[in-house]
């Protein structure tokens, strides 16, 4: 009997896992975990769901029996039962046991996810041995700073797979929340403190997801909250190191190659560079970094986080950002540009690349 019960639980477990795993896209869904954190959370989810489905089954069985057997057939008055201590103890104790089964792994995982001790340890150079990323959330865009490497990028987070990446989260305006569903649960970007946690990106699952995960803002932050997406390029350690080197090698703003691009660069230097940097060094203070860093703009996966990455959309975006991201801070900061000027800008920006 006991073994039977155990098998039944296992079966529910397996079925739940199958049903849930069938859901969503591999680059977005928390049901397709692609890293240690998401995997642990998925397992907790399955454990909780299995227990709960068990509870629902018991309730349903009693419920159905009651509804069928005890319908009113005649005018008799049923026996007025006061209660049953035995039954009441059963349905008090069993839930407590079930909750304990869930509580133990919950507490363990909660502490595990909060273990950021490696990012506190500094070596002789004053750096950490692990990869740290400072995530600064702003109204509808994300900045990713790599303090050890001394570089900054925006909108597309680049991380190596197969190791724990540690994050410092903060916000520069209102509260946001940093969430990469397929890789792990979220943590808030508060305005008053820095929140820390870690994530791990699984190499195989990253491949399945096309090495590009979707990230979201999960805390209501204004009109364009729904559009405050970012992307995560999860690549092998070698590729990551190469990317870092390529980024670090950009000391001066890249010179434009074609005539049109050169014209674009001039416009950029006149109207845009006050907010948008095109060098990756993290030497300017945060407050001066008022808009996404565009050093490797040409290699990004989306424009403004949500639009297809092509010149056409870039032109549309520069022409009228308000139409695509209501309430953004870019609208109206650079005056009216002619179509030709916008063409030139787009040409220049799309050629901002650091990798060959």
């Amino acid at each position: 009997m006991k073994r039977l019960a155990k098998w039944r639980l296992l079966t529910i477990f397996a079925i739940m896992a199958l049903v849930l795993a069938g859901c969503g896209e591999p680059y977005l869904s928390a049901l397709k975990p692609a890293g240690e954190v998401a995997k642990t959370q998925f397992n907790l989810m399955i454990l909780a769901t299995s227990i709960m489905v068990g509870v629902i089954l018991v309730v349903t069985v009693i419920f159905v029996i009651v509804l069928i057997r005890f319908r009113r057939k005649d005018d008799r008055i049923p026996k007025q039962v006061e209660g049953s201590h035995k039954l009441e103890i059963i349905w008090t104790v069993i839930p407590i046991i079930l909750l304990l089964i869930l509580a133990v792994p919950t507490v363990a995982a909660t502490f595990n996810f909060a273990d950021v001790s490696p990012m506190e340890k500094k070596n002789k150079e004053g750096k950490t041995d692990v990869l740290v990323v400072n995530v600064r959330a702003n109204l509808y865009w994300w900045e990713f700073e790599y303090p050890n490497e001394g570089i900054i990028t925006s909108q597309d987070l680049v991380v190596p797979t197969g190791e724990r990446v540690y994050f410092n989260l903060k916000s520069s305006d209102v509260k946001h929340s940093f969430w990469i569903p397929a890789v792990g649960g979220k943590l808030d970007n508060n305005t008053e403190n820095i929140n820390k946690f870690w994530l791990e990106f699984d190499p195989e699952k990253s491949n399945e997801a096309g090495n590009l995960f979707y990230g979201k803002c999960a805390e209501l932050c204004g009109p364009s909250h729904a559009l405050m997406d970012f992307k995560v390029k999860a690549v092998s350690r070698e590729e990551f190191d190469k990317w870092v080197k390529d980024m670090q090698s950009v000391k001066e703003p890249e010179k434009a190659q074609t005539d049109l691009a050169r014209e674009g660069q001039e416009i950029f230097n006149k109207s845009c560079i006050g907010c948008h940097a095109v060098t990756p060094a993290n030497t300017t203070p945060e407050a001066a970094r008022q808009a996404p860093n565009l050093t490797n703009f040409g290699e990004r996966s989306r424009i403004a986080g949500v639009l297809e990455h092509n010149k056409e959309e870039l032109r549309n975006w520069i022409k009228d950002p308000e139409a695509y991201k209501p309430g953004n801070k870019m609208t109206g900061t650079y005056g009216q540009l002619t179509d030709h000027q916008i063409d030139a800008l787009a040409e220049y920006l799309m050629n901002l690349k650091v990798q060959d």
Partner: protein
Amino acid sequence: MSTYAQKRGFGAVLWDYLTTVDHKKIAILYLIAGGFFFLLGGLEALFIRIQLAVPNNDFVNAGLFNEIMTMHGTTMIFLAAMPLVFAFINAIMPLQIGARDVAFPFINALGFWLFLFGGLFLNLSWFLGGAPDAGWTSYASLSLASEGHGIDFYTLGLQISGFGTLMGGINFLVTIINMRAPGMTYMRMPLFTWASFVASALILFAFPPLTIGIFLLMFDRLFGSNFFDSAAGGNSIIYEHFFWIFGHPEVYILILPAFGIFSEVISTFSRKRLFGYSSMVFALVLIGFLGFMVWAHHMFTTGMGPIANAIFAVATMAIAVPTGIKIFNWLFTMWGGSIKFTTPMLWAVGFIPSFVMGGVTGVMLASAAADYQYHDTYFVVAHFHYVIVGGVVFGLFAGAHFYWPKMFGKMLNEFLGKITFVLFFTGFHLTFFVQHFLGLMGMPRRVFTFLPGQGLDTGNFISTIGALLMAAAVIVLLLNIVISSVKKQKVGNDPWEDGRTLEWAIPSPPPFYNFKQLPLVRGLDAYWLEKMEGKKGMVPAEPLGDIHMPNSSFVPFMISLGLFIAAFGAMYRADYSWGLPVFIIGLAVTFGSMAFRSIKDDHGFHIHKEDLIDDNKKGVKA
């Protein structure tokens, strides 16, 4: 003294309701106002679902969506669910304990008018430059950044209506403690009365933190303080704590009375006393108590650290135990019973599986480490709609059908009632079940749109269809109400024939003094006991005598109106020169009315014995 039965003009009826202090009439006022706001909030819900039916929809724009979404939540919680719960507590609780009215009839009326003026103020924001747009939680960093006066409507409106709620809660507590009929001990009180008692105690402790939170928020926005502005040394996380110290008990304030209604309905239509009455009471109290220990589970991702998260996770799980006790007690109340599937019973029966679903996802959410995935996604949206709609709204529908004959003396149509149930039940599950999966598949909550190509299209479309079904159900219910009010047929004392508690021992609707003679309560389910012994009604506990009743008063309306006016003044003080005078005038009206009330003695009046005997002889209203 049977003036209430005479035909009167519309003006007289209106004046009667504007000045009434009778708990039954105040209940009807709450029902009408709460029902109106429920329709408003429902309309907002429909707009939300239409906007999200397909990806990249432009039915409403982003800013307007945030206003609609904020007002949907705020309206449904504060202006629909709370007053509707208050409607039933007002209508039924005094009858259940054998009282002639609540302890403070004047304050009861004041509570209603404060709520109504607060709610109107909040909703006037739609016509005066835009509604609040920072979510019903109105977290400080965003609400401080919000432009225009939307958030000011929120802080001022909720303060006014919150006063009303707090007064209501205190009033109910005092009533239940002091006004029980002879023999009605605590452990003989009907479960609905117990639920009202615990919910009122929760109101007493939960509303002050909310008031403080939004009071400080108001000061930050209108009077230049910096409580929550982190750039100026404030801290917005404190606002989150304030809000949820209120916010979590709030859901129990709503659900416990619904539990009470279900307990009455299930026991009545199973013809059985409640299984495990004392453990039901114990569970209610325990849920109420634990309800204050778990607020931070709404903030697992705020970054409180693993110790706080673990403690609040385990505390939250603990709430599942008393809730489970209640579910099983209901099941075993029906077990061995003789179940009649009336409309209220259908709602109660439909509630059990729906609420269990919401309860188990609650336990899943309690698991802090996993909650990092669920938090602020559609999974949470699905969860709280399962408990609030599947629990509270089902409870209110059950209560409406169950108590309608007692409140109005007419039955609602059973056939239409069942159609309402089927449509709503189907629509509800269609709307919200799929949202669990949408959340897990990566859809954050409070998004005004979603992009195609993320696997979210089908789920959202299904959800919208479900919402339309629920809307259809509400229309059928409205139709039912209209048809029933046109009908002439009156019902007797005990229209469901299986009534167990005191309210079914008196006429429907009850005379304005409720009980001619206070009844003697000889046990749990007092009226049922007498019926089983072959008696027609309750044994009186006192000889027929004069009854002391309170006078009607227009003062509650004036006090509330004053605050309503003052709120406009406070809000526009900085924008227009007339702001400050209006603020002062408003406060003058309020305090003037209060002074008038304090200075002028009002001793009420007596119904004389002879008139009561007269009533008896005519015998038409029984």
